[in-house]
């Protein structure tokens, strides 16, 4: 079995392709180097440009291997007619080089980017539990990772083909197999138990005195709702949502306004329905005119709109859509009417709720975030606090945590005066998903928080003439709701 007489194929076509490939690759690497050379704008650690050195060394090594394999090998082979380069050995050596460079790369990366990782210095109480869980897992897996990868490439090198050797005829070893079934089982049991404890603690330990804040997600932004003076959040329903009531709180004035608006829309749609035949005639005429005058070719964009309208009209889609819209709005109206009968639901607690565009929390105070979404699934992600929970339309979710580090402290630790906590969206939700975030500020004392809260307008402004009307309410709303608030 003469296997390792692997001749380097003296195929000129292959060489040409390779030369072509590497002429393409070299500028690419250069491009990589030129972009990578720029140190990060804010955190430059040393004058040494390790990235480019690393890249250059990598390229050199690759070129060396290639050169060795191709030039020396094939030339001498041609001269002597013997196999000089054993590809088998080349591969074994390359394996070792890749392993060493790879491990250096991992180590380098850990050093270089380690400070950006959200590990340690967590800004919440459960965060440190989380981090310790992470370190335990990291310890085990990194150990296994290094040992197995080193063994893999070491075996690859050590047991490379040798004609004079025969592989060990070794089918199985029950003792060995039992050992490496039992050991991972024990380690995993440990991790499972620890994980179980951490998970249960995070998800089910909710202090009784936690403050509730509603975090509301929509395409594409966040809103928070704080309870007003009554310290309780009012009820909500998606049917109540309107331009002036973005969260759909159960507040009578806003609802009345919405009813008027919806009824107006229904009336408008009904008019459209009644005059549908005429509209369709007009659109048809427009379409025919454009086609006959050849305008459809001069203004293809305009014609497309006309054509779509025409198609909808003749296929009956236009009328069906009107019908559907009316039905939907009527359903909404009837549902709203149903809710309004329920006095417990319309308890007036929503009137003084404050809807804000940022979150302000107090250090060491327990919070429960109540998540809602109105259109698609979003996910509230606060990596600094080790918090994440999906916001699902139709299914309220929650996450309880206690912040332990103020924004100021975090800025100091990170050495970055502009640092701010954010809550990001972390579930694909549409085109602007990447820019859906809300600022989170953690302050030192309750007083600071109360000062901030006082600057936020309640949903319904108190009916004092001097008070500035909030954009979300109108005069009619204020006048009708003030008595309810007063009664409570």
């Amino acid at each position: 079995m003469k296997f390792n007489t692997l001749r380097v194929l003296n195929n000129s076509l292959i060489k040409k392709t390779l030369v072509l490939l590497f002429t393409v690759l070299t500028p690419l690497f250069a491009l990589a180097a030129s972009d990578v050379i720029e140190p990060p704008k804010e955190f430059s650690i040393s004058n040494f440009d390790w990235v480019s050195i690393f890249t250059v060394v990598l390229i050199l090594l690759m070129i060396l291997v290639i050169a060795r394999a191709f030039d020396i090998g094939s030339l001498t082979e041609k001269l002597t007619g013997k196999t000089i380069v054993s590809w088998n050995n080349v591969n074994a050596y390359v394996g070792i080089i890749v392993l060493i460079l790879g491990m250096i790369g991992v180590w380098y990366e850990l050093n270089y980017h380690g400070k950006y990782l959200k590990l340690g210095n967590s800004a919440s109480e459960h965060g440190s539990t989380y981090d310790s869980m992470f370190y335990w897992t990291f310890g085990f897996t990194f150990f296994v990772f290094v040992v197995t990868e080193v063994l893999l490439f070491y075996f690859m090198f050590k047991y490379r083909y040798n004609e004079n050797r025969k592989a060990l005829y070794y089918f199985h070893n029950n003792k060995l197999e039992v050992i490496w079934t039992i050991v991972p089982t024990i380690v995993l049991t440990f991790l499972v138990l620890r994980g179980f404890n951490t998970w249960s603690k995070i998800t089910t330990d909710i202090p009784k005195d936690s403050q509730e804040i509603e975090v509301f997600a929509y395409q594409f932004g966040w809103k928070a709702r704080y309870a007003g003076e009554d310290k309780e959040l009012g009820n909500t329903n998606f049917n109540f949502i309107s331009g002036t009531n973005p969260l759909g709180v159960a507040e009578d004035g806003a609802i009345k306004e919405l009813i008027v608006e919806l009824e107006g829309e229904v009336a408008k749609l009904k008019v459209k329905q009644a005059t549908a035949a005429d509209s369709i005639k007009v659109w048809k005429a427009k379409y025919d005119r454009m086609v006959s005058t050849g305008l459809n070719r001069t203004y293809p964009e305009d014609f497309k709109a006309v054509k779509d309208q025409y198609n909808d009209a003749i296929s009956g889609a236009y009328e069906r859509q009107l019908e559907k819209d009316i039905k939907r709005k009527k359903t909404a109206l009837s549902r709203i009417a149903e809710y309004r009968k329920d006095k417990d639901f319309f308890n007036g607690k929503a009137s003084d709720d404050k809807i804000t565009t940022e979150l302000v929390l107090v250090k060491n105070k327990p919070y429960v975030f109540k998540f809602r979404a109105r259109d698609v699934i979003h996910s509230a992600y606060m990596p600094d606090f080790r918090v994440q929970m999906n916001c699902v339309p139709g299914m309220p979710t929650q996450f309880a945590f206690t912040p332990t580090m103020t924004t100021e402290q975090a800025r100091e630790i990170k050495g970055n005066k502009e640092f701010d906590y954010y809550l990001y969206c972390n579930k694909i939700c549409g085109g602007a998903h990447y820019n859906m975030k809300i600022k989170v500020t953690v302050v030192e004392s309750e007083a600071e928080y109360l000062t901030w809260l006082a600057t936020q307008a309640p949903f319904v402004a108190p009916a004092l003439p001097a008070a500035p009307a909030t954009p979300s309410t109108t005069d009619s709303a204020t006048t009708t709701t003030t008595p309810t608030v007063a009664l409570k």
Partner: protein
Amino acid sequence: MSTAALHVDHHADHHHKESFISKYVFSMDHKMISKQFLITGIVMGMVGMIMSLLFRLQLAWPDEQFGILETLLGKWAVDGKLDPNFYMGLVTIHGTIMVFYVLTAGLSGTFSNLLIPLQLGARDMASPMMNMLSYWFFFASSVVLLISVGVETGPASGGWTVYPPLSALEKAMPGSGLGMTLWLTAIALFIVSSLLGGINYISTVLNMRTKGMSMNRMPLTIWAFFFTAILGLLSFPVLLGAALFLIFDRSFGTSFYLSDIYLEGVGALENIGGSPVLYQHLFWFLGHPEVYIILMPALGITSEVISTNARKPIFGYTAMIISLMGISFLSFIVWGHHMFITGMNPFLGSVFMILTLIIAVPSAVKAFNYLTTLWKGNLRFNPAMLFSIGLVSFFISGGLTGIYLGNAALDIQLHDSYFVVAHFHLVMGSAAIFGMFAGIYHWFPKMYGRMMNKTLGYFHFWLTFITAYLVFFPMHFMGLAGVPRRYYQFTLVKEFDVWMDVNKLITVSAIVAGFAQLLFLWNFFYSIFKGKKSEQNPWQANTLEWSTPVERIHGNWPGEIPTVYRGPYEYSRPDREEDFFPQYIPDESAPEVLQPEETQKAPSEKEEETVETSVFFAAIKRVFGLS
């Protein structure tokens, strides 16, 4: 085995004339179908890879303008800057193509078709007709998916998991219109293809093994394909159900997944009572086994290739099968680990966490067994072997991060971050694609009767291996820094902006990886026509497929099907001079007596047809325990 009756000798008495269409297009020969799957898979793979390069360009240079993009994509890249909605579409279609079209159909379809009859000693699949249909459904599905990329409102763009309500509401995102309808159509066709294939694989494995090929003499490839087919058969219908519900919600006004929705510009919708989380349960009931549908064939191929090229029996053959069995079983009851933070009951989360981490045990056993197989072997590094070793490396480094993500507590922070992207691209993306490459390099001689160029193979391997690590390894760090996945650009968030240099490194590595695949493509297509002629058994392997002639004939063996005398991994037996001992060569010391009456049946063509159907029903009976 009672399958001796199936040892039909086609060769001697029927040569039907094959037209171009029956030979290359609507072929019922399993070898041709496997090539069809492979080439379609490669084409889809190229499309998926080009898409990934497009969105990688956006991530590395978000403020740059690439004129070429406008030329290529038109209105989706006005002024050479990718549109955010189209970015999402690219991400979605990249995922769909890679998961379903390349790594499910391209991998399992190719090698199950090629190897199940050849390694078991069968003339063809249990039902060649269904096999052909399986390919053509897959082809139709691919075409529909590719068409969906070109529709005016863009392709489906809610991520490859297409969670409703985003994917259910046309007004929520442009891609949720016609693009999503076509996506669902494509997936429905794909599922049909997958089921037709799966039933066929299972019945062939159970019923059509040659004499002597008992279950415990089957190569591990076949075991892997067998379990894969079972997984597919049980889980794909659930996805079909989920997709049907979604179609109903989209078009017929039902509320399976929709509740309490207010849409900007539309108003409150009528739907109440549905649950978006229901879709996620149904989806991941397929979605998780799907991961193993992708990975297990690659592991099977690796077992075969490593053993052959280490000239050493695979270590722990039985343990390998039990691991596969354990993984298959467990994969059905761990889907919840994709949903820890969807708001499902925390207790349910704990249950899924425990089950998920148990699955790490059989996976660990497999990794250790591969290492021990290499230990004291005599390793020949041809490209197939290198790719298999690459697979083991990815399997380890990607598998270990699964221990983080399977832990509900750790998942709170890591869910949907780049850590997840790194994890699954290593353990199922790179590992499976390396398994596929290993298979292609190893069985290319069997498919085309020619050899692929080894030197190019080495370059292909090392470039791909290094760049794959350069692309996916740094993503772990980004994930740990809380960088979310599926973000169109990071420049708007200062905290993520510090990763710009890493993003550039990743993109450049991805481009290099793309060029490395050109090496493969050239090698593949050049070798089909101009490659060196192959010997009958170029790798000195033990398994049955190397006993067939180099010319690929209909019915596989010219004479009678060889009998199997021993397991597939008898390499370097101390009592033999040669370092391999094929399954089909009788033992000189104790030759097994052939039973002539069983092998000499030569039924006519008419009988053949009935045999085919009876095999199919026998398989069904066997599967349901009726016989």
